[in-house]
């Protein structure tokens, strides 16, 4: 068949296919199912025509045009539509604890690094308070000492308004979730970035904890941190685990090619990253509106804090014990 005949013969079909493509690509997803019922059929036909045109060496313009149509059709046909609400509920109920269970080795190593360095640094600083200056500059030490000083506590807290709470909420989201994401991504450097972030944050938090405990500011410091700590500290540990997973995939590909191993590790780490986002969001909320509240007694904060820790630990300990298929 000569090209001209071929073109006149199928021109209408290509135009019809192009019309259904435009309908599918337009951002409004309001197209009716009937409009695209012929889509697969049309797509197969265009593929067939492209193959013919290539084989018969028709003119480049025609082949380009058919190639473009087939490519656009390919992208529409092979995309996946997901129900985002269902996915989120499923993820929180099952997917996240299942992912933590699946990557338990990395979660355990990351937790050990983070909580280990935190406790060691806290103990060291408790017995040798001057160590805090090797982590923080003098001004910062003065700032947080003043913040948690029981004598000045009342004064600062009574002036704190709801607007301040909101401002802090925004700050915690930007800063803390950003740190979580960075910890994950920097794990690409053979895990070194994740390890650095885990140790750095562990030591920084441990130093404050040991220093303030030694000063005897326990009644102001611990009620503040116990609540959101449950979500924030575990969140950071899991972010580290996701980073370690990524770095390990690059470092030890096993029987896969290094590139393929990296892709798979990144894919496996994603549920952990979603989970980190979710946990640090809760942490930011609790920290801004609950932990800082001056109306709540320390007993209430300790009780709630204990409940939060119990909730988080049982969520990971009991959730998704039977791995979902």
């Amino acid at each position, binding site marked *: 068949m000569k090209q001209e005949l071929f073109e006149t013969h199928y021109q209408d079909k290509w135009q019809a296919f192009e019309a259904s493509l435009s309908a599918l690509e337009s951002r409004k997803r309001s197209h009716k199912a009937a409009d695209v019922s012929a889509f697969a059929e049309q797509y197969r036909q265009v593929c067939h025509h492209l193959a013919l045109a290539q084989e018969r060496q028709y003119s480049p313009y025609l082949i380009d045009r058919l190639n473009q149509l087939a490519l656009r059709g390919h992208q529409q046909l092979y995309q996946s539509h997901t129900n985002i609400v269902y996915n989120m509920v499923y993820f929180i109920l099952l997917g996240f604890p299942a992912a933590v269970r699946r990557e338990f080795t990395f979660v355990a190593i990351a937790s050990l690094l983070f909580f280990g360095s935190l406790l060691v640094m806290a103990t060291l600083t408790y017995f040798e308070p001057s160590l805090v200056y090797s982590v923080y500059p003098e001004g910062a030490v003065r700032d947080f000492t003043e913040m948690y000083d029981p004598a000045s506590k009342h004064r600062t807290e009574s002036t704190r308004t709801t607007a301040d709470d909101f*401002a802090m909420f925004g700050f915690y989201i930007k800063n803390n979730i950003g740190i979580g994401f960075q910890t994950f991504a920097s794990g690409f450097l053979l895990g070194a970035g994740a390890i650095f972030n885990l140790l750095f944050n562990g030591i920084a938090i441990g130093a404050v904890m040991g220093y303030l405990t030694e000063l005897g500011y326990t009644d102001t410091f611990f009620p503040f941190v116990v609540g959101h700590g449950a979500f924030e500290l575990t969140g950071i540990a899991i972010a580290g685990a996701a980073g370690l997973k990524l770095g390990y995939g690059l470092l030890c590909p096993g029987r896969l090619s290094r590139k393929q191993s990296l892709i798979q590790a990144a894919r496996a780490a994603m549920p952990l990253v979603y989970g980190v986002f979710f946990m640090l969001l809760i942490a930011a909320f609790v920290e801004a509106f609950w932990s800082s509240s001056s109306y709540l007694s320390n007993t209430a904060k300790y009780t709630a804090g204990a409940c939060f820790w119990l909730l988080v630990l049982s969520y990971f300990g009991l959730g998704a014990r039977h791995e979902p298929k």
Partner: protein
Amino acid sequence: MLDTYRKLETPENIDLDIHIAGPLVRILAFTIDTLIRTGVQIALLIVLALLGKVGLALWLIITFVLEWFYPVLFEVLNQGQTPGKKAMNIAVVNDDSTPVSWSASIVRNFLRIVDFLPMGYITGLISMILNQDFKRIGDLAAGTVVVYRDQYKPAPKWPDSRSAPPPVALNLKQQRAMLSFVERQSTLTRERQQELANHLQPVFQHQNQEAVDYIVRIATWLRGGR
């Protein structure tokens, strides 16, 4: 091969041509996106500053979203194109040329901080240059690739001409060259057309404008015209 076209075999058993986007066009797209993002941040800071502390909170949250999710949201919800990519006519797709998924988009955009190291996306640029598909680290980890979105081109106007059978048997490749010459005619100067056509003088025995006209006649014949 020094070629930015890749063949993609589909389940329908045909080869599609994919046109990979290089570093320069991607840098331009990134620059446009950065300008837009910074502009929005500054504009919002001015507006939200009027709302006091609550405004500050909103600004921090929006900045956070812009910083981490600006490319993700656009790529997933807008057919793989951020505004900058749209302006440059390129798009992100999975390696198999299907639309990019949430996870893949998040991986490739979060790993920007690795691509950025030690400064100014040097790692990403080196990775792009070393990789045959111009992938930066984020693309490698996510299994994505940046491709050109070909614009619809109007059909080239076929000249009105009589047809003539070729004086010698032409194989498929040669036939295609004839057709291609006529389709490209409007983009070439008259002198260049003649120069190209003159290469065939030993076969077709024509010169200059006559040679051009003769090729058009043969191509018309090949295409099926009378």
